[in-house]
């Protein structure tokens, strides 16, 4: 079985992959390069095609059209057991009739590797569970099963490790801990990880590069900071964190900035952060970037006046305000509770301001609510 394809090394390249199930197109003309050694996340809501993409890479689905390469080797038609790729399945899929040791040794034995014991012991030490080697999977907790599923995959040192919602079944605290651990293990073993998730926080914590998927296509790809600070579409702006998107019209330029009229007030947006196609824009600003002041306070940067506090929620580290603007839109403001000033009250008249560099602009014809109606945490594929 150890032909050229199982020893392939290098970047993973998906070229114009489409996968249709009858009338439904799960993956739509997707091209992607995942650099060797990176921690790559495919992020998107349920049904966006990310799991299908992962299954195509694993060889569990065949693409309708398109090709897959690892380095120079074409693996499009290879069976999943002929690919140098291993998967950590969503519910782990540990073999219930085998011990933990035999589960981890499974891939090594199938490939006829000699030093099975040494490799298995080493990887069980890496996931800190060597004492469970002789147990059966059902005797392990969810977190332990998760680590064994990971150990069973990385022991083969594949060119590519696929993780399908690996932390979905764990509780929040354990999930946080495993996020850090996964990232550490990835750095330690130096393998390419491709991680599929609907949890934006999980993707941002672990991945070097995130591809945000929606309806079978990649909306935007980049580092977590890129995607968060400079989203190109309303879907990305809303799916990764929260955004205030305000309709406006470009009136002119001022140096490197666009001057935008939003309901008769003027704000500036850096040209490098504008993804508008014409003069009609959606001006975007993250809630935590906005400062909130009582009316009459002088403010610098981008300033919007005439707001009235519609709702206040105190949540410890910050206070969240809903501010109703004169054009009847409610904007979100997250204010850190770090200045000793008591929170403002409902009904107070306020001025909002922020550094103009934090503003981004999207095309004005975009649906300002795209990506926000899906609550990522509630989804499960």
């Amino acid at each position: 079985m150890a032909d050229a394809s199982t020893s392939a090394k290098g970047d993973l390249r998906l070229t114009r992959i489409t996968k249709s199930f009858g009338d439904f197109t799960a993956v739509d003309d997707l091209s992607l390069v995942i650099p060797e050694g990176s921690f790559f996340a495919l992020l998107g809501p349920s049904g966006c095609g990310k799991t299908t993409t992962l299954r195509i890479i694993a060889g569990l689905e065949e693409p309708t059209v398109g090709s897959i390469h690892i380095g120079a080797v074409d693996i499009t038609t290879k069976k999943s057991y002929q690919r140098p790729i291993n998967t950590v399945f969503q519910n782990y899929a540990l073999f219930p009739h085998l011990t933990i040791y035999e589960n981890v040794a499974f891939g090594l034995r199938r490939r006829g590797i000699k030093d099975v014991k040494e490799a298995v012991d080493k990887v069980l030490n890496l996931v800190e569970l060597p004492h469970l080697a002789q147990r059966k999977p059902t005797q392990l907790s969810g977190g332990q099963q998760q680590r064994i599923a990971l150990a069973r995959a990385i022991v083969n040192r594949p060119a590519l490790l696929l993780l399908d919602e690996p932390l979905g079944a764990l509780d929040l605290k354990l999930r946080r801990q495993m996020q850090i651990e996964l990232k550490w293990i990835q750095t330690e073993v130096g393998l390419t990880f491709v991680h599929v998730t609907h949890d934006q926080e999980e993707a941002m914590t672990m991945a070097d590069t995130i591809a945000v998927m929606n309806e079978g296509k990649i909306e935007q790809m980049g580092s977590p900071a890129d995607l968060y600070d400079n989203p190109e579409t309303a879907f990305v702006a809303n799916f990764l964190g929260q955004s205030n998107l305000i309709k406006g019209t470009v009136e002119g330029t001022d140096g490197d900035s666009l001057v935008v009229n939003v309901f008769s007030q003027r704000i500036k947006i850096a040209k490098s952060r504008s993804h508008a196609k014409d003069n009609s824009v959606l001006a975007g600003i993250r809630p935590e970037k906005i400062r909130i002041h009582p009316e009459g306070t002088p403010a610098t940067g981008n300033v919007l006046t005439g707001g009235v506090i519609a709702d206040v929620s105190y949540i410890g580290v910050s206070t969240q305000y809903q501010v109703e603007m004169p054009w009847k839109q409610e904007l979100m403001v997250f204010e850190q509770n770090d200045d000793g000033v008591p929170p403002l009250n409902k009904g107070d008249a306020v001025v909002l301001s922020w550094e103009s560099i934090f503003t981004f602009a999207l095309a004005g014809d975009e649906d300002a609510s795209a990506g926000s109606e899906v609550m990522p945490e509630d989804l499960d594929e």
Partner: protein
Amino acid sequence: MKQLADAPIPTLPINARISRWFGRNLIRIYAVFGFTYLFIPVLYTFIFSFNDGGKSNLVWKGFTTANWQNPCGAPEVCTALGNSIKIGLLATTFSTILGTGIAFAIGRYNFKGRSSTNLLIFLPMATPEIVLGASLLSLFLVFQINPGFWPTVIAHVMFCISFVVVTVKARIASLDPRLEQAAMDLYANEFETFRRVTLPLVAPGIAGAALLAFSLSFDDFIITNFNSGTLSTFPKFVYVSATRGIPPQANVIGSSMFFLALIIVVVGQFVGNKRKPH
């Protein structure tokens, strides 16, 4: 708080306690009656296996262990038993192999005629045995095959297959397909995946199906009576003896079969529990 902690523990009134006791134990009382009803005939058979009744075993004539010391004491009883066991083992082997194959085909693959195959498999179970037995006999006679050992085996394989298919199929349906995908992902080809993952996980279902097939075959009277000719089987022996009084040796064999089945089930449970203690 301190005062409350020191106060005597309040007790429930007597009628509340009685109704609570019934609420907790009603299902147990019901179970005791249910099992009594089920096991009285077995107990009767077992007790009368110790009857010193000679050829007729209808009234209690005194305790003896002679029947257990010499279970083949009655004429022909062990020949009949031997035939039944031979037929049972052969029918079990063939029907388990064929039925497991069919169960995988129906459970795992989509092919033309899958749903009609599914339906046809159920038919022998739904058809009255008397009809099956009679038509099998006429079929054998058309092909000029005389009733006897092999026609009986063929007949038994035929009706056992359906039960094997249904049992194994249920097990296959409960198998998580991701386990097989995981095996393929871990470099096991189709054959290795079947041998290392699919088969071991379906094995309990196959074993259960084999036990079921054996007991169906061993127990069968109607179809056997049509197709076995002069060959004697254990059910036929008991049926024929019934007119004159069944010898206590039949009770010995019947009780032994019951205990054997019980042991198999208990051992099976024990092994199963050992595999997953929780």
